[in-house]
């Protein structure tokens, strides 16, 4: 009979990983499970077993697990006599194990749980006085010990089972008979933990107190050791399983702990204490990621869930994700964990808002955090009005920023694009807090006192209008002019042909002219009525489409001259038609043709200058012609030196540049495939080779230029929009700086904002906004009434923690689960039973910069 082999080296207790309970030294304890000295013996029938303390401070107990075996355990220091009566011999006892003096009332259960970094399996010895009244080995969750004691006890020893190392463990005295909320925890225990006996989920994180305290197991799944992985019933926890789509490479694609998980966890940990409302009073949500890689404490680890998901037959990550969610995500983890499917592909990131599923590139911290944020019910706006890239919403969910979630520090000072006090900046006394606006992607001028030049005019004024969520960086998706878009996501305005439409004004009517099935159609509107709180939904009272009875062969140009809206458009035979709209009456002008003009080979540009129309357009050979109309058309004048790319065309805008009050007529066209800006000088048209401050872009249709005149608080500016030359034709836009150069490039809306035709633009003096008409991705007619981003809506900063407080629960249980706390009043995006899948473009998101 020999002592059991010595277990592996003891595991130390890391107090920073242990749960915080309300009552230290109460019914919940972190203990160090130390091994007693054990002997196992076979006891034949009627055999006499001698087990006695021989010397020292040894305490010795004997258990009989069955009729034929005995187990002796001892702790303290000294020796014990053990063996068959008459043949017993002395054994040394040298154990640091020491029972914990703690009262256990009759009928209470002694529970244990595996601690973070702790030992398992566990065994438990309950003593009353010097009598051993009960023992258990590993009958709890995941190898924890538990013991229901009818007799009560006053000392407990929690020890590692044979072979397990010494180390920390969690011990609870559970007055189970007093469990008021049915979470498996008695009221007295809950009082000591700091949880509520009337709430299943005291910290409102969507996971009940019982599993967070003890772990759980739903067979046949393996046990889920939530406490060992860092769960606390008094602090909000966020459990995530990460799986990976096999990329066929030599390394398994684990989610990078130091590079991705750790910074994300740190950001979650900093959520405001007052808003996140943890029962333990601490800030933050604790992120725990089962990444398949050990060594991350309670932030990440190999907890049995990581799976390599095979590529699907269609090679679509969405298919593999769906397969993984069904087959590689344990059923018992649903409603407890979030499922994050990672892949080694470009792009392809989304998260349900709210929900428990995410797909994200494996190597993007930014997307990892963003998509989990969506799961917790955060939008790109945080909450409130659905506006992305708000400059005062300085949080990670905002496409413009990477970093912490917003703490709402600017919430008390909303920004309204049409009334901005630049001298107040972000409305906080600490000027340094506005400094971030000087960097990417906005590049605002920020004065030392925190004033912000919102309208980029080089001045700091007290009442200006500005497109404040416009990123001056090509590649950012800022979804930033979405306000009352008619036709958005609906068939309200019907379809249109892939031909440039035109906008104009006919007195009180805003007019859109567009082509459908080759016919010129006209719609008008006079007001926005019965508008939805959903700010992206349009509410223009657009008339039904009426046909002008003209077969259209190219893009449409329109401009107001006098009391009429003049329209020039190529017919299908290439001849240019000339019409006018006045008082709602569309009629031909003169013969109805631009007389004497060669057939058009591209879209025409039309402007009004000094009481006359100016028409500029290319013929079929790309030769530009200029004509004038003031009652009749001048003969066409060929413009030398500029060859227009076939199938493109021209647009015109008249405006001023800088402090020079002399109007300048500028044209946007395409030459050699490149967007080309022309300027009309007294000597004729000339190219502006330095019109762009960055690279000269390409397009394959006529670019559209427009001019918005200056007004008090609004600098004059040219706008340029055109579609890309790739397969999807993403829309780009540029704005000019004070020198009239196109220095502020951006995506028009976002990466999906593809268009089959260039837009029609109008600076509308009624309201003073730039309006835009363009085909949507499904060929629908879209009207963006505030294409310059200047609309009367307050943009708020939001404390993300206030959203996450409810979103954490909703992500696991759904928007309408009554056990989840209600969302804060500003929030209006959660409702119904179908979560929204928010698709992101992770390659446009900035990434963090871990220290080297």
């Amino acid at each position, binding site marked *: 009979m020999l002592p059991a082999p010595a277990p592996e080296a003891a595991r130390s207790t890391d107090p920073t990983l242990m749960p915080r309970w309300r009552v230290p030294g109460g019914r919940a304890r972190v203990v160090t499970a130390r091994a007693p000295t054990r002997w196992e013996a076979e006891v034949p029938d009627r055999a006499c077993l001698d087990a006695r303390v021989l010397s020292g401070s040894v305490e010795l107990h004997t258990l009989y697990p069955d009729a034929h075996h005995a187990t002796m355990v001892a702790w303290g220091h000294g020796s014990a006599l053990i063996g068959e009566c008459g043949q017993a011999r002395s054994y040394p006892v040298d154990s640091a194990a020491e029972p914990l003096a703690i009262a256990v009332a009759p009928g209470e259960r002694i529970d244990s749980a595996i601690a973070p970094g702790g030992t398992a399996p566990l065994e438990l010895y309950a003593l009353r006085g010097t009598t051993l009244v009960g023992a258990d080995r590993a009958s709890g969750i995941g190898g924890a010990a538990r013991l229901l004691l009818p007799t009560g006890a006053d000392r407990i020893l929690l020890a590692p089972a044979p072979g397990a190392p010494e180390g920390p463990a969690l011990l609870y005295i559970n007055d189970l008979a007093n469990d008021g909320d049915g979470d498996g925890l008695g009221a007295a225990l809950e009082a000591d933990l700091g949880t509520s006996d009337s709430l299943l989920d005291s910290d409102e994180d969507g996971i009940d107190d019982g599993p967070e305290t003890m772990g759980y197991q739903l067979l046949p799944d393996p046990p889920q050791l939530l406490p060992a992985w860092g769960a606390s019933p008094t602090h909000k926890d966020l459990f995530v399983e990460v799986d990976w789509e096999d990329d066929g490479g030599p390394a398994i694609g684990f989610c990078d702990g130091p590079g991705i998980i750790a910074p994300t966890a740190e950001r979650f940990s900093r959520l405001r204490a007052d808003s996140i409302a943890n029962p333990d009073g601490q800030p933050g949500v604790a992120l725990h990621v089962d990444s398949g890689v050990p060594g991350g404490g309670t932030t990440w680890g190999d907890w049995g869930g990581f799976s390599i998901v095979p590529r699907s037959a269609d*090679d679509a990550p969405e298919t593999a994700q769906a397969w993984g969610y069904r087959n590689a995500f344990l059923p018992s983890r649903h409603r407890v964990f979030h499922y994050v499917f990672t892949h080694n592909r470009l792009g392809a990131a989304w998260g349900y808002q709210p929900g428990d599923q995410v797909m994200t590139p494996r190597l993007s911290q930014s997307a990892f955090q963003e998509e989990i944020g969506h799961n917790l019910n955060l939008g790109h706006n945080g909450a409130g009005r659905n506006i992305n890239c708000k400059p005062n919403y300085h949080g990670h969910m905002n496409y413009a920023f990477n970093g912490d979630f917003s703490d709402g520090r600017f919430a008390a000072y909303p920004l309204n694009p049409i009334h901005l006090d630049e001298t107040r900046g972000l409305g906080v006394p600490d000027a340094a807090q506005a400094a971030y606006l000087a960097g990417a992607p906005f590049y605002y001028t920020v004065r030392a006192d925190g004033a912000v030049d919102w309208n980029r005019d080089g001045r700091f004024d007290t009442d200006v209008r500005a497109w404040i969520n416009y990123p001056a960086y090509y590649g950012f998706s800022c979804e930033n002019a979405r306000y009352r878009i008619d036709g958005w996501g609906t068939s309200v305005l019907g379809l249109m042909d892939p031909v440039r439409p035109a906008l104009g004004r006919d007195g009180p009517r805003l007019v859109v002219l567009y082509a459908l099935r080759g016919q010129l159609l006209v719609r008008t509107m006079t007001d926005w009525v019965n508008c939805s709180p959903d700010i992206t939904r349009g509410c223009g009272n657009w008339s039904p489409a009426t046909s002008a009875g003209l077969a259209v062969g190219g893009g449409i140009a329109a401009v107001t001259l006098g009391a009429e809206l003049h329209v020039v458009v190529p017919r299908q035979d290439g001849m240019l038609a000339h019409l006018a709209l006045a008082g709602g009456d569309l009629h031909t002008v003169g013969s109805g043709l631009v007389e004497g003009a060669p057939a058009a080979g591209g879209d025409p540009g039309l402007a009004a200058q000094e009481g006359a129309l100016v028409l500029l357009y290319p013929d079929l050979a790309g030769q530009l012609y200029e004509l004038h109309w003031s009652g009749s058309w001048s003969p066409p004048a060929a413009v030398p030196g500029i060859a227009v790319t076939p199938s493109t065309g021209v647009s015109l805008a008249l405006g001023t540049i800088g402090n020079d009050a002399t109007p300048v007529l500028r044209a946007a066209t395409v030459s050699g495939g490149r967007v080309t800006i022309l300027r009309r000088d007294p000597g004729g048209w000339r190219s502006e080779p330095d019109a762009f401050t960055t690279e000269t872009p390409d397009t394959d249709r006529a670019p559209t230029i427009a001019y918005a005149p200056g007004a008090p608080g609004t600098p004059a500016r040219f706008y340029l929009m055109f579609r890309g030359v790739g397969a999807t034709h993403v829309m780009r836009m540029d704005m000019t700086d004070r020198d009239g150069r196109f220095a502020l490039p951006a995506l028009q809306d976002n990466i999906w904002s593809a268009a089959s035709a260039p837009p029609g633009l109008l600076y509308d003096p009624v309201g003073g906004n730039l309006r835009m008409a363009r085909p949507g991705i499904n060929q629908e007619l879209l009207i963006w009434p505030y294409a310059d981003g200047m609309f009367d809506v307050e943009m708020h900063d939001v404390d993300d923690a206030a959203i996450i407080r409810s979103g954490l629960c909703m992500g696991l249980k759904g928007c309408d689960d009554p056990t989840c706390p209600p969302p804060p009043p500003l929030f209006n995006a959660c409702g119904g039973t179908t979560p929204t899948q928010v698709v992101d473009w992770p390659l446009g998101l900035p990434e963090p910069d871990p220290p080297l």
Partner: protein
Amino acid sequence: MGALVAALLGVLAGCEGPPEQVAPDAGPADAPPRPCNPPAPALDGGAMGAPDPAARGELAWAYRDPVLAFPFAQPAVGPDGTVYATASIRLFALAPADGSLLWQAPSAEAEPLIATPLVDESGRILVASTQVALYAFAPDGKQLWRSQLAGGTGTVTAPVRLPHGFALGAGARVFWIDDCGQWIGTYDHSARLSGDLAAAAEGTVYAGEPGAGAVVALGLDAKLRWRTVIGQAPGGLAVGPDGAVIVTTGSAGVVARLDGASGAVRARVPLPARVGAPVLAADGTILVAATQNGAPLGGRVYALAPADLSERWHADLPGQITLLPAVTTAGVVLGISSGAQSSLLLLGDGGAVRFSTPCNGCSFVGTAPALGADGNAYTSALSRMVALRTPGVLDPRSAWPRARSADDANRARSLLP
């Protein structure tokens, strides 16, 4: 530098200007391509210092763009040492000495660029985009042309260099483009192709067909030369100096050697591991980065004999191989990740570790490094590009189409000793 750029621009002048655009839904234009002269080779930069024999993987520099990250970037090195890498929608050119930004250029309509640029003999930088387009940039960042290819849905490959042009794949389709960016051929396979292409010196293009576990060989005439079923989905391809095609099969662990001319399987071995793309050393040894059997966080490098794929040696490493091997004059450079830290390693004879230097915050991302003439190994590290000092340069005798490409400029073709 300026004179070199001017010289390069001079030789490139014949190819400037956009090619005929091909509408994605209209099929290639019927008009025959214009005559296209091959670009002249660039002058050797020649100004870079030699590697420091005492270098042990120290960080030389790191480049961090204020907006975009380099999560997938596999850089390429130009003739003058300039480091080219893509991040999201932009191509970056970095100075080899200090990583300073020389220029950056966006894609035409904000479409992501494929992570592996290619530098051709003239110094032009070729990079594909997710819209199945091929871009050519001059060494000064000027976009020379953009060739929009017709159709092809699925993952777009990096381009490979061919005699007088390039090839790239998308889904089940492979495209051939001449040196001036003109489309010259398309091959439509009956099933999806996967992984990056490999190309032999004479222009045969090899691709994997994962559904059937096959390898296909395509001629310069855009026709199928052979198709061989090896039974497992190909993950990586390399072409040896003798024209043999070495195939690895990712998680299936098979390494096979095919006859380049006929596709016949000459050797086939299963390894008890996940295996990366093969890398060919100067003596023909095939190096395969792999996992350790039973240790998902352990790495192993296999060295296999080229003829029968028998094992010459293997080296077990205390981390997954997350920076794929590159054969240098000083040994094999690679990177590992233990799950908590990434390190750059240099392996000597028989796989002996000559140094292992932690690179804090590097987080290698599964690509292969490019190597400069000064011994710097360039790679992406999540949000950054980093340069790590090594004592060797790319072994010029080593034909090593590596994970996604071939030589230091990612030309993805066999370079004969």
